[in-house]
């Protein structure tokens, strides 16, 4: 609209030509200062391509937390924080380096985090965005007759129904559930790990540094 208006002005009133040039240059300067200002003031959110996932959104302005210039994200980027979550990864490198399963990597590059998790592409709320029916890349047979009890189950139901986890399967696997089945609602005795603190002294020492506090030096 603005461009059209200035074009019209140009054909009818030559005096406006100058003015519109100023406008164009002004806009360019504004955009430039806006972008350089964004960089200088660390307001990097203007460069975000889309909605960041629920956890990462808290530090989304720190681009270089995950991105090194324009290089692709590596697994190390993710494991820097998520090592604990991946400690017992049921679909980890150990499994897929085994020749028995290596072939399945052709269906889905399971050894690369970003093959499934697409950050800044909102899908729905669970961790870093992923497609809900990814299991079907390899396990389609399960819901299509290979396993009678699972026949006809929804393609995205594996984990949305709360039955299976891709990574940490330790607390939800069939084996784990079988082992722990039919126990009383309330176990006879709670077994929360006990936290003990050992004291080195019998009586507290005299506080040091009192003078520094009162003077408030820093």
């Amino acid at each position, binding site marked *: 609209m603005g461009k059209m208006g200035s074009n019209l002005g140009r054909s009818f009133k030559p005096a406006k030509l100058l003015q519109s040039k100023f406008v164009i240059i002004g806009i360019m300067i504004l955009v430039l200062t806006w972008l350089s200002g964004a960089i200088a003031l660390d307001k990097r959110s203007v460069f975000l391509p889309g909605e960041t996932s629920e956890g990462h959104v808290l530090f989304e302005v720190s681009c270089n937390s995950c991105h090194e210039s324009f290089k692709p994200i590596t697994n190390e980027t993710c494991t820097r924080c998520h090592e604990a979550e991946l400690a017992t990864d049921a679909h980890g490198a150990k499994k897929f380096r085994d020749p028995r399963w290596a072939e399945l990597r052709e269906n889905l590059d399971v050894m690369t985090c970003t093959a499934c998790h697409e950050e800044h592409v909102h899908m729905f709320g669970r961790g870093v965005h992923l497609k809900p029916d990814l299991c079907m890349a390899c396990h389609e047979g399960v819901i299509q007759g290979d396993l009678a009890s699972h026949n006809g189950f929804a393609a995205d139901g594996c984990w949305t129904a*709360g039955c299976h986890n891709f990574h940490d399967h330790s607390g939800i696997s069939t084996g784990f559930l079988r082992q722990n089945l039919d126990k009383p609602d309330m176990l006879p005795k709670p077994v929360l790990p006990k936290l003990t603190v050992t004291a080195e002294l019998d009586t507290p020492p005299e506080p040091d540094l009192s003078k520094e506090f009162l003077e408030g030096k820093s």
Partner: protein
Amino acid sequence: MKKRAGVQRRGGAEVKKEKIFVCLLCFFLLLVFNLFPVPVLAGEVSQSELDEINNLWRNSAHALADVNCSSCHQNEETKKFVAKPTHESCQSCHEDSVDTFLLGKHGIRILEGLSPLTPAMAHIPMKESAMDKQMNCNTCHNVHSVNTYPAAVDSCLTCHNDTHSLNYQDSKHAQIFADAGSLPRPNEESVTCATCHLPRQKINQTTLVNHNNTYTLLPRDRMVKEVCMHCHSVEYAYNSIFDDELVEANFARPPTLKLETFELVRALEKKRSSKVNK
């Protein structure tokens, strides 16, 4: 008439230029202030405040562990006085606690070199009065009394204002905690916010508190294995934790959900045992 309009227009353009100039000036002033913020000076401490702090410390586990003022308030190498120690000071002894804290939502901004998290940044309901609180070790812990009892519930409720958090006080879990009384730290039977969200973990004979507050949130079954199953059966826990309404009510009643998973596992068990019997 035409002439006058022309004059007016030219006047308008000058005013516009001035406006742009003022805008740019303000912008650069803002830029300069943001790049060089006015330093905040550490306030002095009065004698009575110091006495109170010393008293809290004298009765703390820190004092009996020979952790004195200088342990935190003095730089080890330069011997310079540190008025406000940061998480790095705590980290020198409580490595696991701080390391895990930095990986959760509460601490991740510090790890990534940003300003600490404040409730104002949260995407869940927070208390109006707490919006500016900066998330650091001493936001939840009284670093002088080092009594973890208030850090288990009261600290959380200073900021968190969602239904799940607010419903804790009326829950059975809260009742157990209240009955246990004010111990130096929550005992093995107490179920507090921290019990589930900052779970105790036994690693190589030592018990540590995992301060990654995001760790047991997703997938939900992680909390079942890490926490719930210390006291409840797997079935009771699953049927509770996958019921959104019951989670919101902070487990105010026994579960009514019956997850199909368990029927499937039971059917499988039956099939297996009948095969064995044959």
